[in-house]
């Protein structure tokens, strides 16, 4: 059964980017306004799922040749490393550090080690969601 999904595909092409941009925004804004690594990761995954629905899993695999298992492990390592790094500074496990900086273009910016941890969460969420969907979707 071959359906005509030109409309879905055309819309997807535009919407995917909007979702992705929104995901990035929400990930970075998470510490002060609604959002964070978890939602950011889910949104990114949903953008990719949308692509898969519109263009098929194989096509998307070619466009985004990412090994999601590796992505998951990198995320986990990043999260644990951020948490463990505090030991090197002789403070208890999982102590975060932050400060405010004047950066060009961004102005006054807060840089927070929680950000790195959140990035780990983001990677794990995208990695696992996509792993599950890809594995089940590809199964014969």
């Amino acid at each position: 059964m071959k359906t005509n999904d030109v409309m879905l595909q055309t819309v997807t092409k535009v919407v995917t980017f909007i979702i992705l941009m929104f995901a990035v925004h929400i990930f970075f804004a998470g510490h002060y306004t609604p959002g964070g690594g978890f939602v950011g990761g889910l949104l990114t995954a949903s953008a990719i799922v949308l692509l898969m629905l519109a263009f098929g899993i194989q096509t998307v695999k070619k466009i985004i040749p990412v090994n999601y298992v590796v992505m998951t492990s990198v995320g986990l390592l990043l999260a644990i490393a951020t948490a463990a790094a505090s030991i090197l500074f002789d403070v208890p496990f999982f102590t975060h550090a932050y400060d405010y900086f004047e950066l060009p273009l961004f102005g006054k910016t807060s840089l927070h080690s929680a950000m790195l941890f959140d990035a780990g969460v983001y990677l794990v969420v995208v990695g696992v969601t996509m792993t599950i969907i890809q594995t089940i979707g590809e199964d014969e």
Partner: protein
Amino acid sequence: MSLVLLIFLPIIAALFIPLLFKKVGQIHTGWFVLLVPAALFIYYSTLLPSIAEGGNRVSELQWIPSLDIAFIAYIDGLSLLFSLLITGIGALVVLYSIFYLDKYREQLHNFYVYLLMFMTAMLGVVQSDHLISLYLFWELTSISSFLLIGYWYTRDRSRFGALKSMIITVFGGLMMLGGFVLLGIMGNTYSIRGLISQAPELVGHDFFVWALVLILLGAFTKSAQFPFYIWLPDAMEAPTPVSAYLHSATMVKAGLYLVARFTPIFAASGTWVWLVTGIGLFTMLWGSFFALKQKDLKGILAFSTVSQLGLIMSLLGVSAAGFHVENATEIALKYAGFAAIFHLINHAVFKGSLFMIAGIVDHETGTRDIRKLGGLMSLMPISFTVAMIGAFSMAGLPPFGGFLSKEMFLTGMVALTEFDLFSMDVWGILFPVIAWIGSVFTFIYSFYFVFHTFAGKHKPEELPKPAHEAPKGMLISPVFLAILAVVIFFIPNIVGEWLVNPAVAAIQPFMYESPSDVHVHVAAWHGYITPELWMTLGIFAVGGLMFWTLRKWQHQYERFPNTLNSLYDKGMFLSDMGANRFSRLYMTGFIRSYLVYMFSFLVIIVLGTFVLNDAFAIDMNNLAPVGLYEIVIMLALLGSTVTILFSKSRLTAIIALGAVGYSVALFFVIFRAPDLALTQLVIETISVALFLLAFYHLPQISRKEERMRFRFGNAMIALGVGVMMTLIALAAHSGKALPSISEFYKETVYKEAGGGNIVNVILVDYRGFDTLFEIGVLGIAGIGIITLIKLRLTKKEGQHENK
């Protein structure tokens, strides 16, 4: 600080092994590994002079300060002796393994990582002063032994042997942990030195005998004492370097170490003396008797190890008896402690070389079956010489180290007859008799091992490979050990002064202040014929005669059944079957059954807690007014829920389920929880997509098997869950047992956490541990799904599983 870090040196080195194996494949990985034990051995040797004078070294590394758990390396004579054995024999075994394991065909990275892991574990066992870290290392030796026995994991026997050793030794380890905890409660400290210093007060405690028995269970399982020895013969499936190292020279001696280490605490108890001496001696007899039944070279050596361990164990028991005698340092009883340690060294030397020879024979002829072997003497002259030296030392012949310690063993056993406590005056005579019989069998199996392999008729047609001498490199280690066996015979008192006395002083602090107080002179010839010498001569005569006629009576062994092993097998089979049956009772394979269990259990627990604590609280104050929006969303929610229940097609159900999720998200929006709303919306979207993707694989909905009773039960559970959730919600709203934490978050979120969005700061900071473990769980779930779906064994692959 540095000493305790040295324990971890091997396991840190292990991190680089896979890399070296993959990147520097042309050089055998063993050469790199060799550096570790060799360097440690040299370092520990430099400690000898100060330790021999009675000094000790302590270094500490905090592990869990809040629970007062630390790694404490405490090195005295006993620990140093074991550390030297571990690193010294370790270096020789690694050198041997370089020639034994082919670098192209074997998975060397696995092998050496396990081996180095074991080295750390073993060093930790013999150096730890803290009972909990001692236990940690103890179990790590069991695990690394499991991995090494199962190194050729495609073989059925390897897996069986690995599991058997693991089950028995870990059982013992857990018992031992119980004993440790009891000791910790009694003495209010986990430090062994601390416990020894208050040993007199511990004796009268209620737990004393319990702790004693539990710790002995640990020691007996590890050191393969009767009736737990059955794992050791099956552990021979490991590569021969492993058998030489773990299962004869080091790991199985951990139990001896434990007994020796705890002698100062438990020596006061008659139970200890009887159990350690009795079980040890009986094991010695049992092992030596059944060694002659074996047809496999390594099987003979395994039973011989069991027997020799029993011998040393019994000597340790006798040395504890010295606690009860006033003038223990002046009578023959004093030889027991010395003999135990001295024989331990001798055993490591000769058994190590014998195992290596067994490996060489296996390697060069392709079989270890002693019935097929014979006449290798002229083909493998060096191996033969080494085997002869090792076996003669084991049999107790001069001029080899074993002769000296064997004679001291008999001295100690004879001395026990003069000991008049714990009804030894009645039963004491049994000890030298059993020891003598055991020694006769030891003599016979030693000769059986050498001469049935190397003498007699050569049978080339039965050998899988034409026999020839081993490469030079493989011979270095056994030849070195054989030379050592001879050297020890000629300089026993130097060995005694440097290695044995410091260890003896650590075992018997109630007799000796410092190693220099140990006045034991070892001599091959005392100037006159002692009772022990008569016994030795008797062993040679009777043993020689029985070996001569061995072929006539050896077949009688077939009459003895393998009771203990079949007991283990039956036990395993029954527990397997029982567990399987029990699981199948409730594991139906239908998710709906599992949901029924879970939900009914949940309802019972929660409602039960409600009733027990009288936690029903319904307070309608402070409720927000219900507006039009809420009513509309609620109706949508109800409508879609009912649709799920009654829809005939799965597609409808999925879409209705999505509608439920979106309605909940709308609630979040109304109640101003943007984070939750956002997450809920995205999750709903993705799970609907996932459902659609997985749609093809799901079976058609069938409702035929649902009878009325089943439906009624489900309705009751559903009702229960509904009531329960409502009650929880009402109670949570009404009764504020604790002040809300939200104020704390509001105050600290900017000042201390440097953030603005409380929800996210909770996720990454306040409760970061939760998130860390949650993403861990997510990762595991992902791997689980891959395993379930991608790694399914097809029928064709399934047939190869056991090859």
